């Protein structure tokens, strides 16, 4: 019987940390069970399994994992038990429930012990069937946990089998060494693919001790909004007198759990070498408040070993693996060969293609087989995300099963047939889709009508759960040879799609079909399209003229500050530089390191001095606004991390500021900048927003008694409200100082209404400090 429904379980994970159990294998070894099939003990000696489950429940585990890790047909066949899949798995669930009636039972599914093709001989469908059988046998569990996944394709088969055949929540957990699985998938890519495939909880277990898995947890928490699970080993395995032992003490796991909780991990347990004593230490974090994670996710596509973020600059999709007008490639596909395909793949990636479009549709060839072969061939030689270019549903599905990463399906259009067949495939296999703006009436002549089709496709896609960031719109390029207005129409359509908030893709070379000097035309069009916001451009990367003429840059890595830039500096300097250079990405990690050596107040002092230096640089005009804001963001991140420790050490906020843009004024950028700087200087700011009535300001002032009231106005027609606020305050004998600022505000006006003045954000913060220091003296 399902203890919780899925939604209930997932909601509860957002309320507090849940504790998984520890290892089964090492507990069995302690009790002398070192030979034979451990899963068969569910039938042969269920009491020992019950005792182990109960010991974990007594130690504090909320979730008990069934003794079915190796209970797939393939694994059981090693012991001649292939015909006992149902019996062993059902027994596993029953035993766990009998032993721990108050706990959540997680049906455990482990890897198959062999890889999927092309690494081994097991096909995707065969793997799916094996997993499906085990999932069905575990159907009475509350949740499923698919763990110790070291191959992304195996994860795909297992997760899809679970989604198809189990109604409860599904937890997936990978295993990583040096931040990659055995078959090379990095942590971010694993997370992105698991998320897109529909896992409810994503995480990692085994392979590393607490320190190693902490690094993994950090990356997972940064790349998903789903709940996260982490189960470290009790250290790295050591061989002692012919036995594998794990030596990490329970207290270390306890400290790990504290740190993991701060990252926003939702479920914590233990893997190899952990026992009830380790779980008892981990359980101490059980009632800690969950740290909420709200990551802004964008479009991401993956190969086996890397993730490409589609943000900002136009990304190149290589178009050459397409047999249209290529007789030699057509012949090769008919013959089942892949030499040219591999050559084109290598050439295009070398010339800057970030993704590759793969089309294998040839008359006289089995497209399903051809596309599968093409994908295999390409994945064998290059390591980029792939665009599956076909209108044959069977071929698309075959390719999705074969792909190692997260693909883009080219494409779905506005016809009923396409919507009903392609969208469910994309959802099932975790693929992104290209929404093509045509329907049964053909390609509309206007940008507006193309947008209507796009909206229709988007609505249907989002209805079945395909996320916004996984929908990329192709407004369809038509040649200017037949209508010179086609360029204008398509660029207008791209902008309209961008304003809706969706990504865009175009087949660039269509613009010049039928014309001479195609490369020059394509190149100019690509530049214009890029400036209109084009996210992905399907082009021939080997076209030299395109490369030279175009003003767009091929995807470059976003310039970030690397953690290695700091490594040889003393920690005090690292802290200082992180604020000075606005390194909001690395500062929390630097603060964590600093806390091992310095008190929170000492760290605070270093950070504040650095921010003061930013202010000085701004006043000297060596820094301008974006640099100040980046420093403020870094400071805010650091403060958020230090808040708890600073409170313990007795550090109070510097003061309370009530802030508002006055009535009838709707400008707030300037106000928000000042607020960001005040917060980074440890002031508490109560922000009433914009267009705030005088009455609301007075009422709030009476309620919270701020140290300073700050007002912003940007219009000559609204500045008068500032005087009204000051007058109302004084009439009520409220003598709290008022600080004013904004584009139209001058020091003369401030003097006239007897308010303080801040001409810019830095000066405003300085003035607040002077006011409060003046009050305190």
């Amino acid at each position: 019987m399902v203890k919780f429904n899925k939604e209930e379980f997932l909601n509860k994970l957002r309320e507090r940390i849940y504790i998984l159990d520890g290892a089964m294998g090492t507990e069995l070894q302690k009790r002398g069970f070192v030979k034979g099939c451990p899963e068969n003990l569910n039938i042969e000696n269920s009491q020992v399994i019950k005792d182990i489950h109960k010991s974990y429940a007594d130690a504090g585990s909320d979730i008990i994992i069934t003794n079915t890790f190796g209970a797939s047909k393939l694994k059981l066949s090693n012991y001649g038990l292939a015909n006992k899949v149902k019996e062993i798995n059902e027994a596993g669930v029953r035993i766990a429930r009998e032993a721990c009636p108050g706990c959540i039972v997680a049906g455990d599914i482990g890897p198959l012990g062999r890889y999927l093709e092309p690494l081994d001989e097991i096909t995707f469908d065969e793997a799916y069937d094996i997993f499906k059988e085990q999932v069905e046998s575990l159907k009475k569990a509350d949740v499923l946990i698919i763990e110790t996944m070291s191959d992304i394709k195996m994860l795909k088969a297992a997760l899809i089998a679970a989604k198809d055949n189990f109604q409860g929540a599904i937890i997936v957990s990978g295993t990583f060494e040096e931040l990659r699985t055995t078959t090379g998938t990095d942590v971010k890519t694993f997370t992105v693919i698991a998320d897109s495939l529909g896992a409810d909880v994503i995480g990692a277990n085994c392979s590393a001790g607490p320190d190693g898995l902490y690094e993994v947890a950090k990356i997972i928490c940064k790349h998903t909004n789903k709940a996260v699970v982490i189960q470290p080993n009790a250290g790295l395995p050591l061989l002692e007198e012919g036995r594998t032992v794990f030596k990490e003490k329970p207290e270390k796991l306890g400290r790990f759990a504290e740190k993991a909780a701060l990252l926003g991990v939702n479920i914590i347990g233990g893997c190899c070498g952990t026992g009830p004593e380790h779980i008892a230490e981990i359980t101490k974090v059980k009632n800690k408040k969950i740290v909420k994670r709200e990551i802004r996710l964008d479009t991401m596509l993956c190969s086996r070993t890397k993730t490409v973020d589609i943000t900002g600059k136009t990304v190149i999709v290589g178009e050459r693996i397409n047999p249209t007008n290529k007789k030699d490639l057509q012949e090769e596909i008919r013959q089942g060969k892949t030499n040219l395909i591999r050559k084109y793949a290598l050439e295009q990636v070398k010339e800057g293609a970030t993704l590759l479009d793969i089309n294998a549709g040839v008359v006289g060839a089995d497209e399903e087989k051809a596309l599968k072969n093409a994908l295999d061939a390409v994945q064998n030689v290059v390591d980029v995300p792939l665009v599956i270019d076909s209108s044959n549903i069977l071929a698309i599905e075959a390719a999705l099963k074969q792909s190692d990463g997260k693909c883009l399906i080219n494409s779905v259009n506005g016809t009923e047939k396409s919507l009903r067949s392609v969208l469910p495939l994309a959802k099932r296999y975790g693929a992104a889709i290209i929404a093509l703006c045509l329907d049964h009436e053909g390609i509309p002549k206007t940008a507006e009508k193309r947008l209507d089709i796009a909206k229709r496709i988007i609505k249907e896609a989002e209805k079945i759960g395909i996320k916004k960031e996984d929908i990329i719109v192709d407004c369809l390029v038509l040649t200017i040879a037949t209508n010179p207005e086609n360029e204008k129409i398509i660029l207008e359509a791209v902008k309209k799609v961008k304003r809706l908030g969706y990504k865009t893709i175009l087949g660039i070379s269509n613009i010049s079909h039928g014309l001479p000097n195609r490369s020059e035309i394509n190149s100019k069009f690509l530049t214009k399209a890029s400036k209109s916001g084009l996210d992905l451009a399907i082009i021939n990367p080997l076209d030299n003229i395109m490369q030279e003429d175009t003003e767009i840059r091929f995807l470059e890595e976003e310039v970030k500050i690397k953690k290695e830039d700091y490594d040889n500096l003393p920690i005090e300097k690292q802290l200082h530089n992180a604020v000075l250079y606005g390194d909001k990405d690395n500062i929390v990690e630097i603060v964590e390191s600093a806390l091992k050596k310095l008190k929170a107040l000492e760290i605070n002092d270093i950070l504040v001095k650095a921010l003061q230096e930013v202010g000085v640089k701004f006043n000297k005009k060596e820094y301008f606004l974006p640099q100040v804001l980046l420093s403020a963001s870094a400071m805010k991140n650091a403060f958020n991390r230090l808040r708890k420790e600073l409170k313990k050490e007795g550090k109070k906020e510097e003061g309370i500021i009530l802030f508002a843009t006055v009535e009838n004024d709707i400008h707030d950028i300037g106000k928000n900048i000042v607020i960001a700087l005040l917060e980074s200087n440890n002031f508490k700011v109560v922000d009433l927003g914009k267009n705030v009535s005088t009455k609301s300001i007075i009422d709030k002032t009476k309620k919270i008694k701020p140290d300073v009231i700050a007002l912003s106005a940007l219009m000559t027609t609204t500045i008068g409200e500032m005087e009204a606020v000051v007058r109302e305050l004084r009439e009520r004998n409220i003598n709290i100082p008022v600080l004013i600022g904004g584009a139209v505000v001058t020091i003369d006006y401030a003097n006239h209404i007897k308010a303080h003045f801040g001409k810019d954000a830095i000066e405003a913060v300085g003035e607040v400090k002077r006011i409060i220091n003046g009050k305190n003296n």
Partner: protein
Amino acid sequence: MVEITNVNIRLNKEKILRRLGYNEKNKLDKRVESIIDKQIQEGYSLIDPYVVYKDLGIEYVKEDEIRLKNAFFIKCKALANILKKADKATLIAVTIGEGLEKPSGDLTADSIRDAIGSEAVEELAIAVNELITKRAKSAGYKTLFRFGVGYGGWDIKDQKKILELLKPKDIELGTRYIMHPRKSITALIGWEKE
């Protein structure tokens, strides 16, 4: 009355940097520059230019008052001084839409977008000004300094009269005569015979 939507605006990075307070003393490092570049790139897709304008005759220009034919009068000494020899004028309303106003959740990005928006609407107004100058020239006129509502003593309340006359479909007037979207400009361009 003429409406135009397909105006291509080129975003000038140097001007945007200056709006953000950049000057020769700043050390613009690659990272900050790449952040600004990214916002400019995205900015192109968030800009939705819209222009509406109407040519009007000028009935008279007195010391501090201008009467537009079949329209309304304007009380502004500075504007009257510019238009003293003009017999025609074009009223314009332009906007780049609200795409750049929407908070992105990142204050650095929002402040850069604010600067981009200010630059973009100014570029749009310049582009329209150039168009009107060309039209004026072909009719034997030169155009005079573009004068914005709310500046040089031109009462911002006249915003209401202008928008009632031009009826721009993408610009509204809120309380205290603030236009929505915020990055909008209304102005008058005088025509003087050459």
